[in-house]
């Protein structure tokens, strides 16, 4: 599997886009837009607006997050920003500051 991994020693300043899964362990500043899943791991530090299908966050994220499917804030993550997605999960132990918009169609 040609999985894209941005390791802990790497810093990216700019824009990342694409149509495959992306794992971030390092530092990314700017903008991320993906058609697939994004994994922000514990060692990662992301300062970016994120537009993805799924995102799983264990590390630090500052920026607005918009997912077409699901946002998962794992225990020990630190997220500051607004989150918009149909499904949002926040685990016990996660730190989060921002708005949540689940965009659920009212019955």
């Amino acid at each position, binding site marked *: 599997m*040609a999985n894209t*991994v*941005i390791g802990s*020693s790497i810093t*990216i300043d*700019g824009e990342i886009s694409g149509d495959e899964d992306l794992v971030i362990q390092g530092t990314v500043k700017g903008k991320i837009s993906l058609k697939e899943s994004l994994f922000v791991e514990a060692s990662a530090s992301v300062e970016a607006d994120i537009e993805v299908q799924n995102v799983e966050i264990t590390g630090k994220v500052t920026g607005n997050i918009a997912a077409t499917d699901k946002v998962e804030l794992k225990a020990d993550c630190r997220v500051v920003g607004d989150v918009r997605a149909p499904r949002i999960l926040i685990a016990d132990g996660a730190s989060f500051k921002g708005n949540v918009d689940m965009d659920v169609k009212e019955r």
Partner: protein
Amino acid sequence: MANTDQINIIGKGITIRGSMTGGGGLVIEGRVEGQIALKNHLTIESSGIVEADIRADELTINGTASGNIDASTKVSINQSAKVNGDIKATRVVIEDGAVFNGSIEMDVKLPDDI
């Protein structure tokens, strides 16, 4: 390169615009535009397209690269590679079949008796 060095991969479906810096090895199979500064080995695979000024320790190119290259040890331009730009490195290898346009500056230390 030590085994402990991690390998970072930019897959085929990924495009990065901006600057990338850091240590560890890096393999690019996708597209990178901007700047790359790396302390270790950079490999541009045959599917990789890089439009960036590159600084790295060692560089292996199988894909397409345009921009200036500054490597502290070696640049290998392999058979399937297409490279445009100026190269500065101690050692430069260009294989048969590779396409290269630009200048090469090797940091040659001439013997004293010349």
